[in-house]
């Protein structure tokens, strides 16, 4: 694939830049179709299952296995929020443009609205709730609170997950790497400068925990 120059030059943020995300869309759609086909084959059918037919899926979310019935078209976002009540993950656009629904899939930030629940089977899914230790905030959450890195707080779970993913891949990001890392997460309140500060504070807090 011809890569966009901007993306090739981009630091290894692990997150999705808005532009980078579009490039992965095509593969996402293929994967969705493949997942549906695989599920159909497993059920012994020759054709794709009916869109409204419920299928079994097992999802590993925040270290816990959930077995449930889903329609093949249900997004991971819908299942997290409406089926499992994990409303820490927010819905903003449902078409991979805003980042409010960012979760970690196998440690990498992904948009839950563009991931089918079936696609997420077998993956390790982490949501905002999964960063908590009981009632205690995780280091990225703590940093966001300390630095006032939000206003209304609605995009905040997605921003926090993007920073969490960034720091797992790159524990010492530069300012530009942080900006790239949250470049796929819109904040209409415009708290970006404080999100940048929070990301770097979170990097310090994380180090404090491990050493």
């Amino acid at each position, binding site marked *: 694939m011809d890569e966009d120059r901007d993306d090739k030059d981009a630091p290894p943020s692990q997150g999705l830049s*808005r532009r980078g995300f*579009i490039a992965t869309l095509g593969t996402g759609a293929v994967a969705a179709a493949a997942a549906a086909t695989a599920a159909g084959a497993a059920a012994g059918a020759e054709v794709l299952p009916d869109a*409204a037919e419920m299928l079994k899926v097992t999802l590993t979310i925040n270290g816990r296995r959930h077995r449930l019935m889903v*329609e093949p*078209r*249900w997004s991971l976002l*819908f299942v997290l*929020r*409406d089926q499992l*009540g994990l*409303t*820490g993950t*927010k*819905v*903003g*656009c*449902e*078409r991979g*443009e*805003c980042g*409010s629904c960012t979760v970690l899939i196998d440690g990498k930030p992904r948009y839950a609205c563009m991931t089918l629940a079936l696609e997420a089977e077998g993956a390790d899914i982490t*949501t*905002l*709730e999964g960063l*908590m230790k009981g009632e205690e*905030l995780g280091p990225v*959450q*703590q940093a*966001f*609170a*300390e630095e*006032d890195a*939000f*206003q*209304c*707080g*609605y*995009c*905040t*779970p997605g921003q*926090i997950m993007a920073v969490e993913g960034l720091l797992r891949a790159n524990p010492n990001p530069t*300012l*530009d790497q*942080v*900006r790239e890392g*949250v*470049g*796929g*997460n*819109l*904040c*209409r*309140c*415009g*708290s*970006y*400068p*404080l*999100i*940048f500060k929070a990301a770097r504070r979170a990097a310090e807090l994380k180090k404090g925990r491990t050493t």
Partner: protein
Amino acid sequence: MSREDTYWADDEPAQAPAQTPAPLPPWTETRIVGKPVQRIDAYERVSGAATFSADIILPDMLHGATLRCPHAHARVKKVDASAAGKMPGVHAIITDQSAGAQVPWYGGSRLFDPECRFEGEEVAAVAADTPYQAWDAVRAIKVEYEILPCVSSEEEASKPTAPVIAQGGNRAPGKPYERGNLQAGFAAADVVRERTYSTACEIHNPMESFGCVAKWDGSNYLTIWDGPQGVFPVQQTVAQLLKLPLANVRVIGPYMGGGFGAKLGASKYHIITALLAKMTGRPVKLFITREEAMLAVGNRPPVKMTIKAGVKKDGTLTALQMTNVGIMGAYRAGGAGGVDWVVRDLYLCPNVRTEAADVYINAGPSRAFRAPGHPQGAWALEQMMDELAEAIGMDPVEFRLKNVPTVSQANNNTPYSTTGLKDCLAEGAKAFGWQEGRRKGPGTGPIRRGVGVAAGLWQGGAGGPPSTVIVRLFSDGSVNLNMGASDIGTGTKTVMAQVVAEELGVPLERIRVEHADTGTTQYASASGGSKTVPTESPAVRNAALDVKRQLFEIASAVMKLPAEDLSIVDGRIVSKSDPAKKPEAIGTLPGFRSRGVIVGVGYREPNPSDRVTRPFAAQFAEVEVNTRTGEVKILRFLAAQDSGRVMNAKMFANQTFGAVTMGVGLAMTEARVLDRGQTGKMVNANLHDYKLPTALDIAPDPVCLPIDLHDTFTNTGAKGLGEPATVPTAPAIANAIYHATGVRCTDSPMTPERLSPLLAKAAKRG
């Protein structure tokens, strides 16, 4: 009935309850107010514990979806929902034909009006078990439309053959404003300049979309979980339209994911959700999609503005004339006007005339959007000021400083309670390094660098009555603050808790805020117009003072000291005159436990009538322009803000950065694009093609410089901040681009597509 949101009033109502005590002066020293304390609800907002209205899940709840007109102008001839109604999971479909659906909306129109005057106008709605099933059914409803001719620009709307969108014609002229003698003013000028500017249509796009959950208890009591800017305005409209007593409509909205003016009051989705819930006898949740929100719930009207200005060589402004035309959309729903206020009042000028008109087109109605009209007006005026400064060979900051008024010229020269405009300009310039930035020059390569300045004011920001607040002090010394106002992300709850902590000496951790619930909290107007802190904080202080008075009555008897001699230090009541006197802890004060609680009530007093209160701003930008591609990088940005007393330094900076980011959107990225002259449809109704500023579009490390003036117009002295801070941003960037390149871009947004031909032309000339 009209569905125009009230936003700010030119004449603020001056009614307060008769028992209001004489206002106190603001604090001279503070312990907690003004300090950069952490938000009291930070934990909820970062842990996921905060329940936004979009997060509400009720037992037995259904999901709604709305069918919208896909044409810019069409008549609905027939709606056939028979097949859709039989689909799996579908419980109700509402159309214009349904019983009880003929609810009036906009002027003379109704909820599902058969004549759809804009793309996205509501035609029908569905309630089903899942949102997926609701959308299946929406797609299965067959509608026969008669497509009508549409207009999507001022030019098309003004043609004699244009379809009439509004009774009274497509052009609604406003009342002209005039002072002095314009002709004499131009005659006295050494330099006269005239130029036309335009701003694009912007869409609010809060990250939480628009919607609510509605549930009936019986046929007469309705609860709506919502995230509006004001729960009481939503309650009033819903009660009125559904013919319910106000007491029987409870609107609850403790958390909300952004509004920016589009959630000041009720929208059609509130009524539709309530009706679907009534039809099904089950709770219904209806949230509209991002695409629907782009079309149907408001926008900042695009404006074309012509300014003619006269100035003397010494920098004295002699005349200002502004003519502007705004595009209101298909209905009058708020958000129009306000464009000329900066021209009327920002600078000293004896001879001013402004004239405005609003034009109806077949597009979504405009609605109040952060400082309605002001960023548009500043876009024009502040670029003109830059041009005039150059024409007379004066520094742009110096030129502005020469014309700083101390009175509101548009309000019969009434003095400002405070004005920090001069400080914003002078101190801002110093902190930014303005002189060095100007001297440095643009450079010679393809990348040019420049700095620009712009100033602004906001016509609102003073607040006023009504507001009622209740503070309850429990006998263990903890406090419950009860107020109706919404915290729209500005930190309202935290600021109010700081005020209580200041007066009662109670730590913030011991203060809980109950708010934004028409069933259990006190009346408040919508959080908008940058008036929440100036409106509510004085009432909160009065309520805390009322508690203190009653507490001291009890303590006075116990301690055998006059109440006037008492004060609270760290939760203990002490004698002011005798430090040796044994203090009494609030939590163990005899006689308090048996009483249980002290209830204090506070009201908002009217503002003084002999002063005008306005917030001011001056902002400075440094940019780098790639003259080959038209790409612009904002390298540095400084915002100097006079919003009276700073209530919380941390949140003050945060809100300022947010306002500046939104201004960057106006300047650089945001524009609704209509398919003009063709279908009239919006071609970029999504967040990929309608570009909100991202983390990569703003200055990486902006600076907020608060001008912490201690105004005395209320007992807290805080003016509004959210709106004034977005007024000067875009022209500051435009002026910096001009400084860098010599290209004046008069139309927003300044995208590479728009800038590069201008740069190419300039290069040819140069």
